[in-house]
């Protein structure tokens, strides 16, 4: 019966049948519909960003409105690296991630104390300060005009970043997949379990010997690294970096996206990114002026009706099934 226990423990970490299907679909998409390579690229990047937020928000229970800080730093560093040092994307990616990791480690001390609101504001403040910093260092970052003259070299020395965005899409998708698998492994490991323990009940987590602050720092730093990767992908595939990488609304959007998809479930970030971006793209091409209204309406309905029931209309007029998994 040990197998019983062990297998049901390992059940979660095992791959479900639909997962490979999904990824195959994702990787087929740019080829099947080349005209959407660009939006697919953007979705992949946003998804990665959202997934990184899920690690701290969904699994560790840290609310953050400043996640763009890492996104932006990773982006700027990668772009500057390409401009000033060498144009190789992968090295740039690594450097961008490294920078974000360091910042994350540093910033992790700010999220150890206080209520949700406090954390919300502190993280937000960190993001805004970096924004100001990038603005003031215009000799380096190009200030509010953005950083020009970023020319990326070919990927692996072979694939140029083409106008159709094929290379970009596959680049981003691959990085997304790799980091996703990494995080997937992390959250199903004992380490991941201790994070969830902290999320659920800090007091008890401490009472069973989990060094809470160290764990918080670890997960925050890891999330920062991944967010940095997303930022790096963004600037590398657009060949441009500007202040809005740090903007408050980036952090807000990514949180929306994550919550739409559902937190504490890495695929939530991916789902949210797909739904949100495609919806925005579709609606805003119909009504470029007022698309925000419809997005807003969607969010309101989503919450009022509840995530699950929204997808099962026949349940709308029965009793609420009590809240989304947020």
């Amino acid at each position, binding site marked *: 019966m040990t197998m019983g226990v062990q297998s049901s423990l390992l059940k979660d970490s095992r791959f*479900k049948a*639909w997962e490979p299907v*999904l990824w195959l*679909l994702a990787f087929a*998409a740019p080829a*099947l*519909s080349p*005209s*959407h390579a*660009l*939006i697919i690229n*953007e979705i992949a990047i946003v998804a990665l960003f959202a997934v990184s937020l899920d690690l701290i928000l969904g699994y560790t229970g840290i609310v953050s409105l400043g996640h763009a800080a890492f996104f932006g730093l990773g982006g700027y560093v990668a772009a500057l690296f390409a401009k000033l040092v060498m144009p190789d994307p992968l090295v740039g990616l690594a450097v961008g991630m490294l920078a974000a990791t360091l910042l994350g480690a540093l910033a992790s001390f700010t999220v150890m104390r206080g209520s949700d609101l406090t954390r919300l504001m502190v993280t937000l403040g960190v993001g805004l300060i970096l924004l100001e910093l990038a*603005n003031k260092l215009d000799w380096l970052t190009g*200030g*509010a*005009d*953005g950083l*020009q003259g970023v020319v990326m070299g070919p990927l692996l020395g072979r694939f140029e970043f083409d*106008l*159709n*965005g094929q290379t970009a899409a596959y680049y981003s998708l691959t990085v997304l997949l790799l980091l996703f698998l990494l995080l997937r492994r992390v959250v199903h490991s004992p380490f991941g379990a201790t994070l969830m323990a902290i999320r659920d009940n800090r007091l008890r987590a401490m009472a069973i010997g989990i060094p809470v602050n160290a764990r918080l720092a670890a997960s925050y730093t890891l999330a920062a690294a991944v967010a940095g990767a997303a930022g790096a992908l*963004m600037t590398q595939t*657009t*060949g*441009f970096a*500007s*202040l*809005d990488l740090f903007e408050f609304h980036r952090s807000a959007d990514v949180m929306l996206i994550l919550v739409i*998809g*559902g937190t504490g*479930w890495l*695929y*939530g970030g*991916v*789902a949210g990114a*797909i*739904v949100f971006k*495609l919806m925005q*793209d*579709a609606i*805003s*091409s119909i009504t*470029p*002026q*007022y*698309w*925000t209204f419809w997005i807003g309406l969607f969010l309101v309905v989503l919450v009022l009706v509840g*995530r*699950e029931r929204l*997808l099962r209309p026949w349940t709308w007029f029965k009793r609420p099934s009590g809240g989304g*998994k947020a």
Partner: protein
Amino acid sequence: MQKRFFLQAVALAAVSLTVTGAMAQDNTFKIGLILPMTGQQATTGRQIEAAARLYMAQHGDTVAGKKIQLIVKDDTSLPDATRRLAQELVVNDKVNVLAGFGITPSAMATAPIATQSKTPMVVMAAATSSITQASPYVVRTSFTLPQASVALADWAPKNGIKKVVTLVSDYGPGLDAEKYFKERLTFNGGQVTESLRVPLRGPDFAPFLQKVRDAKPDALFVFVPSGAGAAVMKQFAERGLDKAGIKLIGTGDVTDDDQLADMGDVALGVVTSHHYSAAHPSALNKKFVEEFTKANKGLRPNFMAVGGYDGMRVIYEALKISKGQGGGDALLAGMKGQIFESPRGKMFIDAQTRDVVQDIYLRKVEKKDGQLYNVEFDVIKDVKDPGKAK
């Protein structure tokens, strides 16, 4: 449950992938107009789109046997969005021209696409001098801040304004304005005693204006993106800077026609330099203003609108010249060197710099039949963008 939700999402994705597939017909000529239609720069987008549509209404939508199709996209003034949209327009919709571009970063981010795809890119708003250097395919029909500010720096000393404090928004155009105004003013024997930069999203001008008041210059030179102008002038008056004998001068953005009407008497007498005023006395402009206002429930066209209007003109004419043959380069060639009368007055596209050369007017805010207008009282002919000189 989340699994189900997720599969739904994927399904949705698949669907919309197939739905929004763009197909290009041959005899259409597509203009991809990328503008900030939402967020803080929204007015820019509205004015330009309206003007573009007006031009098409006035001049028909068939040129050189081609049907003109306008594709408007909202970039929410996010550079990466601008770039992606441009890329999609080029790759998927096969647009012949990219146009619009509300803010400098957006234009800068998109320039490489224009170069890569050899698609002419008509900048109708963004006003930082360096944009036209970002790509050989950029053509500008708006203006550059050096143009406007230099003209003012020429006028000021002649009118007893020697000591000036500058107050600009802390971003590309602002810094341009500050730099060139200062240079020219010192060259003309004036002096800038202090240069203040206000954060783009700094809601309250009070402390800066207080600083100005304590500095007691002859005049305050202001550049802020249109919209913030009103606030500056009100607080300028409220703080009693006018009573303290300080003049308010600036580029035309401050007394933006779009809002001038609502600004009230605080705006009276403010001297600005700009390339366009809705009050420009010419038959063409009267017609333009009239029909624009009619078509947009009373909205008064501002310099953004005229930029869009002339941008369309440049595109139309270039299409005529190239007879719709030979892609982007032919079109670009057709755009270079165009000389014509715009609602703003005479203007032409410098063949070398691809930047606009135009008359810059000095205007004073006055009441004309009950409404406030920038009334032109002096003009400096054929101002090139000083930014290109160096």
